[in-house]
């Protein structure tokens, strides 16, 4: 099973993501950008689900740091956001995210399909 890391500060969002994904992927949970950067270096994931709005170090900054890390490289990073405003998708893709999923996540099958597509499965 492929390994997916989620970086999300809200515990209820993490719980829901786990319920949606635990049968399909090995999951690592991080509640902050800093925890993710440390954890992902020690335990590399095949894909990262990255919340945009994180305290202290926000999602776009975590993205930049992951992309700059030789141990991470070009692995897929999917933005998670409750912004859901016009032009969000284009903005996040332009930042360097591979895909974008808006919260609340209403379609778990679509989320799984998006992750699998990014993993080339």
């Amino acid at each position, binding site marked *: 099973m492929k390994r997916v890391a989620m970086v999300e*500060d*809200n*515990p*209820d*969002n993490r*719980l*829901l993501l786990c*319920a*949606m994904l635990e049968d399909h992927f090995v999951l690592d949970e991080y509640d902050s950008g800093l925890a993710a950067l440390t954890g992902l270096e020690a335990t590399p994931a095949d894909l990262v689900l990255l919340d945009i*709005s994180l*305290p202290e170090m926000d999602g776009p900054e975590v993205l930049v740091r992951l992309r700059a890390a030789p141990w991470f490289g070009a692995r897929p990073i999917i933005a998670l956001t*409750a*912004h859901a405003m016009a032009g969000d998708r284009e903005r996040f893709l332009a930042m360097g995210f591979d895909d974008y999923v808006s*919260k*609340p996540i*209403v379609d*778990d099958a679509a989320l799984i399909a998006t992750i699998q597509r990014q993993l080339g499965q």
Partner: protein
Amino acid sequence: MEFDSEAVARVRRLGGDDLVRRVSTLFIETARLRMTDVRGGVAADDLQAVARAVHSIRGSAGNVGALAVLRCATEIEQAALGARAEEIPALVARLEVAMAAAEGHFGTGQP
């Protein structure tokens, strides 16, 4: 309509009543903490802190279909991002009422 039963039904399909209970309890607990950040941000005139806190509340409220909370939080976020500080105290008062209703609805209100 204050609460969207389809949102709860979606959570129930994923993990039964147990998951509904855990997610709604986490929503209330987390939103209570974020409300403290909202009040602190308003007191300090820190609109970014207010926007960040209500953004988080908004995301969690959507998970469990707490529509009134979601609406108030969205309006506060837009006011904070639009630097319309004068609108925020009245909206926060509405959010407090909506949160109290959500706590009652999900059965986790404090006595």
